[in-house]
């Protein structure tokens, strides 16, 4: 399989897990419990599929499981990508498993809620980080250029 196809599959999986988590989160109410259950199992299925595919994916594939590194000087992708991806897989996976088990073990309901809320914060961090890497950096550079341009034109005037 080509790397491009692996990337497409990864994007599809990302949409699946994010969409299912979103539905599970907004339906976490007594009135919409059946929808919450369905979406929760969709999240759990996505995590299981990801772990299985990641375990057997070739070394260079983007489908390989994230392997966080502390080598901040390394070229290429920022190390925080790996850390956040691993934290998300663990957090969202734990939220899904604890939710599934809470069906039979009611004492797990509170831990499930705490894990889900914590995962939401990690998701927020992930979105903010990706937004910064792909857009924020460019925006900061543009602001920097604009500011230096203003300074430069002021110097010209004087």
């Amino acid at each position, binding site marked *: 399989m080509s790397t491009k196809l692996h990337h497409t599959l990864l*994007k*599809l999986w*990302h*949409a*699946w897990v*994010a*969409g*299912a988590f*979103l*539905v599970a989160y907004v*339906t976490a109410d007594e009135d*919409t419990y*059946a*929808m*919450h*259950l*369905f*979406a929760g199992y*969709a999240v759990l299925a996505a995590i299981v599929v990801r772990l299985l595919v990641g375990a057997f994916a070739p070394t260079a594939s983007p489908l390989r499981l994230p392997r966080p590194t502390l080598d901040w000087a390394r070229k290429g992708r920022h190390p925080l990508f790996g850390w956040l991806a691993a934290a998300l897989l663990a957090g969202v996976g734990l939220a899904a498993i604890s939710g599934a088990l809470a069906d039979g073990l009611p004492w797990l309901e509170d831990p499930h809620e705490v894990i889900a809320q914590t995962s939401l914060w990690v998701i927020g961090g992930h979105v903010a980080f*990706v*937004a910064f890497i*792909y*857009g924020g950096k460019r925006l900061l550079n543009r602001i920097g250029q604009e500011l230096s341009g203003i300074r430069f034109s002021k110097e010209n005037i004087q």
Partner: protein
Amino acid sequence: MLGKMLIHCLVAAILIGSAAAVYAQTRGAGLALPTVTGHHD
């Protein structure tokens, strides 16, 4: 790229949400599989 990802996630959320709503409806209408005791939910 980020915008595209967000749109993909929202589309997936709509699809999964719709499927979940259908599941909830069938469950509510007693169309779900019988439980161990033989009664419907």
